[in-house]
C-alpha cells in the first residue's frame, strides 16, 4: 500500500454451526479488532447471504473501507460472491481477501481452543497480506465462434449437430474414412434392441447435409496452438486417392476393380470380412466416398494396373492416383474431444485362447457377425460356417481385474445380455453367461435383464479360469470347454460350447498420450481424459475451451454418451456466444528488467505460455495462455517471474501473520 492508510473490514462468518460450533467466533472477532489497520470487525450467521453481503457493502461506503477480509469458507465457493459485493460497493474486487476458517479450521480441528487459535492466526495472516493487495483489472479477449470436434463417433456426431443447429460452424474431424465410430458396427443396441443403423444413419446423413458442418473425414488433427477462444489448428488430410467432391458413392469402381473378389481383410469388419483395394467401408458410410488403399492397390505397386476402376468411374473422373496429403488450417473458439475408446486386446489374457482357438471371439467381432450389413449378413456362425449349438459369453474380460484394468467398463454386462439375446434369436443355441456381478443400473436395464432371464439364458456366477479344448469327458470332445468356479453352486464347472464370446473392456485409445499433450489435457490413471470436476464440470477440462464427450472420458453407453455430447456442445456454444471471454488477473508476469533470459521457465509452463524474445534475450508470458499455476514463478532463479495475487511480499507477510502469534 502506497500513500493511503489501510482501512480494513474483517467479517467472520458463523456458517450456522459449521464454524461457530467449533470456533469461538466472538473471541476471534475481539482479537481481529485489535489488528493493525482493522477499522471494523463483525460476526454474522451467514456472511454469504444478502444481509451479510449488504453489511460489507454498507461498511465500505460508511466507513470508507479500502480492504476487506472475509473469514468463512473456501474461496472456491464464495470468493466470487464477496468480490462482486465489494465491486458493487465501489471497491476493486481484488482488494478482498478470503480466509478459510471452515475447510481449513472448523471441519478439520476437533479441539475448540485450538480451532479458535488457528482461526486467529489465519485472520492475522489475511489482514497482513491484504494490505499489499493492489487493484487489478480483468481483461477481455475476443472469441471465435467456430467449433472443432475431434472424433466422429456418436459423441462427435451428436455434439456437431447440436452446435451447428445453434448456428456455430463446426469442423468435424474423423480419422477413419467414415464417421459412425463403434456404434456403426452394432446390429442392435441395448436395452431397447432398436436397430443401431436405424437410429445412427439419420444422424450421420444429417451431418453430411448440414450447411454448418464441414466434415473432414480420413483426417487427423496434428497441431493445436493458441488459447481459449482463439485456437489455431492444423488438420492433416490423408489422401483417399478419390476426389471427395466428384465421387458419388455408386460403388461401380469397386465392382470393376481388377480384383474380381475381395481378398484383403476389411478394417471395418475387424478382418472377419474382406474388401478390395478400392472400397467403401460399409454401405451407409458417411461420406459415401471410395478410398484406395495404396498398400494393396496394383497401380501403386507396379504402376501398371489396367485401372478398370478409372474406366468405371468414367466421366466423373473421381479417381486420382496422384492425390497428396494435404493440410488444412482452422481457427476455432472451442474444441470438443470425442475420440472414443478402444476395445481391450483379448489376446493378452492367454488363458482364454483368443487368437489361438478359432472358436473364441471378442464381442465387437460378434457385433459384426450379428449385423445385417456385416460379413455374414447377420448370421452368427463360426469361422467354418457352422451354427453354434452352445455359446459361452465371458463377462469382465480385461475389466475389474487388477492385472489389466481395475475399473468396471460399465457396458459389458448389458451388451453381453444383448449378445445372448441375438445369439439365441439367430441360432437357437444354448447360451451361458459367466459373470462376476450382474450390473444393470440404468433406465430399463434391469427390465432388460429380466426379459433375458425369461429367454432361458444360463447364468453362471463366477470368473472364468480358462477356455480349453482339452476334453476330460466324451461330451467335451471337439468342443471348447469353459472352466469356471460357480460361486453360487460352490464348485468348478466345465461347460462345453462351440463358440466363446469375450466381453472385452472399454479402454482408452492407444494414442491418448499424443492427443492429451497436443491439447494440454490430463488423463486419469487409467488413461481416460480427465474432466475438470467429476460432478460440477464433467465435460470441461483443465484447458479452458477444450471439452470432452463420450467414451474418451470413461466407459459409458450410448445414452450417456449422447447426453454428455449435448452438454459439451452446450458448453462450447456458451463459450463462443458472448464474443469475448474475461480473464482473471491472477496471472504470472515477468519483470523484463530483471529477467536474464536464462530460459529455465520456458519448458516448465504446462500451457506453453512463455516465449523467449531473442532480440532482448528476455522471457515473456502470454496473458491469455497463462493459467496462473505459478510453476514459472517458483522456478525463476532471478525472481523476475512473479504472479499477481501471489507476490513475494504478500506471501511473506501472510507467513509472518501466521507466525505472529
Amino acid at each position, binding site marked *: 500500500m502506497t500513500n493511503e492508510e489501510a482501512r480494513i473490514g474483517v467479517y467472520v462468518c458463523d456458517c450456522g454451526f459449521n464454524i461457530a460450533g467449533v470456533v469461538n467466533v466472538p473471541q476471534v472477532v475481539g482479537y481481529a479488532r485489535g489488528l493493525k489497520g482493522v477499522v471494523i470487525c463483525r460476526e454474522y450467521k451467514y456472511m454469504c447471504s444478502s444481509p451479510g453481503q449488504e453489511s460489507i457493502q454498507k461498511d465500505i461506503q460508511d466507513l470508507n473501507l479500502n480492504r476487506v477480509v472475509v473469514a468463512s469458507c473456501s474461496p472456491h465457493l464464495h470468493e466470487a460472491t464477496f468480490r462482486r459485493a465489494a465491486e458493487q460497493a465501489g471497491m476493486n474486487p481484488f482488494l478482498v481477501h478470503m480466509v478459510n476458517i471452515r475447510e481449513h479450521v472448523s471441519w478439520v480441528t476437533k479441539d475448540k481452543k485450538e480451532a479458535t487459535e488457528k482461526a486467529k492466526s489465519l485472520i492475522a495472516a489475511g489482514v497482513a497480506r491484504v494490505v499489499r493487495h493492489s487493484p487489478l483489472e480483468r481483461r477481455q479477449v475476443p472469441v471465435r465462434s467456430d467449433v472443432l470436434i475431434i472424433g466422429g463417433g456418436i459423441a462427435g456426431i451428436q455434439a456437431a449437430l447440436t452446435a451447428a443447429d445453434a448456428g456455430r460452424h463446426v469442423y468435424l474431424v474423423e480419422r477413419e474414412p467414415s464417421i459412425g465410430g463403434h456404434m456403426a458396427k452394432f446390429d442392435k443396441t441395448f436395452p431397447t434392441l432398436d436397430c443401431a443403423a436405424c437410429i445412427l444413419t439419420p444422424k450421420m446423413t444429417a451431418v453430411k447435409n448440414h450447411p454448418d458442418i464441414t466434415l473432414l473425414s480420413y483426417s487427423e488433427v496434428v497441431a493445436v496452438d493458441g488459447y481459449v477462444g482463439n485456437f489455431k489448428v492444423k488438420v492433416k488430410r490423408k489422401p483417399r486417392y478419390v476426389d471427395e467432391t466428384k465421387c458419388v458413392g455408386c460403388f461401380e469402381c469397386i465392382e470393376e476393380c481388377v480384383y474380381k473378389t475381395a481378398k484383403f481383410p476389411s478394417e471395418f469388419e475387424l478382418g472377419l470380412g474382406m474388401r478390395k483395394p478400392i472400397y467403401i467401408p460399409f454401405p451407409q458410410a458417411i461420406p459415401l466416398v471410395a478410398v484406395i488403399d495404396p498398400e494393396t492397390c496394383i497401380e501403386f505397386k507396379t504402376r501398371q494396373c489396367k485401372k478398370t476402376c478409372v474406366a468405371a468411374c468414367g466421366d466423373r473422373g473421381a479417381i486420382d492416383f496422384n492425390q497428396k496429403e494435404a493440410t488444412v488450417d482452422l481457427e476455432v473458439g472451442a474444441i470438443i474431444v470425442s475420440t472414443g475408446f478402444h476395445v481391450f486386446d483379448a489376446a493378452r489374457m492367454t488363458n482364454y485362447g483368443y487368437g489361438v482357438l478359432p472358436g473364441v471371439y471378442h464381442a465387437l467381432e460378434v457385433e459384426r457377425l450379428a449385423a445385417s450389413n456385416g460379413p455374414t449378413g447377420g448370421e452368427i456362425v463360426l469361422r467354418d460356417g457352422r451354427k453354434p449349438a452352445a455359446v459361452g459369453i465371458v463377462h469382465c474380460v480385461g475389466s475389474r481385474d487388477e492385472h489389466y484394468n481395475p475399473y468396471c467398463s460399465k457396458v459389458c454386462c448389458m451388451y453381453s445380455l444383448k449378445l445372448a439375446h441375438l445369439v439365441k434369436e439367430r441360432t437357437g443355441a444354448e447360451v451361458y453367461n459367466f459373470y462376476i456381478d450382474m450390473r444393470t443400473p440404468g433406465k430399463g436395464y434391469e427390465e432388460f435383464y429380466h426379459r433375458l432371464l425369461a429367454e432361458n439364458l444360463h447364468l453362471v456366477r463366477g470368473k472364468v479360469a480358462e477356455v480349453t479344448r482339452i476334453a476330460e469327458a466324451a461330451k467335451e470332445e471337439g468342443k471348447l470347454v469353459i472352466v469356471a468356479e460357480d460361486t453360487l453352486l460352490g464348485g468348478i464347472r466345465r461347460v462345453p460350447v462351440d463358440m466363446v464370446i469375450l466381453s472385452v473392456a472399454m479402454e482408452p485409445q492407444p494414442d491418448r498420450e499424443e492427443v492429451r499433450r497436443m491439447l494440454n489435457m490430463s488423463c486419469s490413471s487409467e488413461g481416460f481424459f480427465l474432466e475438470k470436476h467429476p460432478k460440477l464440470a464433467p465435460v470441461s477440462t483443465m484447458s479452458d475451451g477444450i471439452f470432452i464427450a463420450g467414451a474418451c472420458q470413461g466407459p459409458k453407453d450410448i445414452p450417456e454418451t449422447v447426453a454428455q455430447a449435448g452438454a459439451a456442445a452446450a458448453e462450447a456454444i456458451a463459450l463462443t456466444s458472448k464474443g469475448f471471454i474475461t480473464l482473471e488477473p491472477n496471472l504470472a508476469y515477468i*519483470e523484463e*528488467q*530483471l*529477467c*536474464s*533470459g*536464462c*530460459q*529455465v521457465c*520456458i*519448458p*516448465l509452463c504446462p500451457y506453453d505460455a512463455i516465449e523467449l524474445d531473442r532480440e532482448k*534475450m528476455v522471457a515473456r508470458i502470454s496473458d491469455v495462455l497463462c493459467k496462473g499455476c505459478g*510453476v514459472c514463478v*517458483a*522456478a*525463476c*532463479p*532471478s*525472481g*523476475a517471474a512473479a504472479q499477481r495475487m501471489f507476490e*513475494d511480499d504478500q506471501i511473506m507477510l501472510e507467513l509472518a501473520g501466521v507466525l505472529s502469534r
Partner: protein
Amino acid sequence: MADKPKVAFYWCASCGGCEEAVVDLAEGILDVIAAVDIVFWPVALDFKVRDVKELPDESITVSFINGAVRLSEQEEMARLLRRKSKFVIAFGSCSHMGGVPGLANLWDRASIFAWYYHDAPSVAPGNVREPREHVRVPEGTLELPAFWDTVKTLDQVIDVDYYLPGCPPTPKLLADAVGVLLRGDLPPKGSVLAGTRALCHECPLNESKPEKLLLKDIRRVHLTKVDPEKCLLAQGLLCLGPVTRGGCEALCVKGNMPCTGCFGPTDEVRDQGAKGIAYVSSILDFDEEADIERALANVPDPVGTFYRYSLPRAYLMRTRKVMPHA
C-alpha cells in the same frame, strides 16, 4: 594530503584473495593511491589498531571490509571501522554472504574443535591442547579472540552501506565502485555494486541454449569434456549462472568452468541456495526414480554446491544440532 578522502581496508575470515584483488588493480592502484589516503591496511601497510582508534568518528570516507565474521576480534574491528567510517563496503563473497568460511555453519564451535584438535587423522593421538581465550603463562595472561559458534555476514554484525560481490570482486568492479564513491553519485544504500540481472544475460553462451532447457543428467566438470560453444548448463553441468548476479562478465564460463555463484543472488532473491535447488530440480527431466538417484549421485555435496558462498545468509542459516562427523 589532509584533503584526500581516507580509505581503510580490513580482512576478517577470508583467504586473502580479496586483498589480492586490490593489488590486481595493477597500474590502476596508483591512481587510487594518488586519489586517496590509505589510513589502514594490515596486509600491506604497517598501521596499528591504535591508529584507527585515534581517528575522529566518521573521518574515514570508506572502509572496505572483506571476510566473514567468525571471531570476536573481527566483530570488534568491524564495529570500530563502522564508527570511524562514513561508508562501509562489504567486500567479496565472504563479507557479503558468509562465503566458503560460512559453510562451517553446518557445525558449531564444539564439533569443529573436536575434529581439528582431537579426532582428525592428522592430529597426534592424545592431543589435549585446544585454543583457549585466556592462557596463563608466567609472564601473565595471553588472550586469543573468541571463536563464535556461528559464522556471520558483515551486515549481520554492523550496518553495511554497499556490497561488492565476488570471490574475489573483479578489479573493474572495484575501480568502478571507488570511482562512484569519489564522484559522489551514490547509489541507494544497500545496493550491490554489480549487475542487476543474472549472469546468463551477459554470458556469451546463453544464445546456444536449446529450445527446451531440460536436463537428462547431471555431470561433474572434472569428468566432462566441455564443449566451449554450448551453454554449460545445457551440457548437464550445474552452472549457477541463472541464479547468480551478473557483473563478472562470465569469467568462469569463458574458462569452461560453470558459475559457482560467488556474486550471490539478484535483488529479488534472498536465498540463493534454495533458489538454485528450486530451478535445477525444475529442469531435471526424469521419469524414473532410479534416474533421479543416479543424477543426484553427481551432486555429492549439495550444500557446498548450492550454498557455496551464501549459507549464513540463507533462511536456514545454520544447522540447529551439530552433525556428527561422518
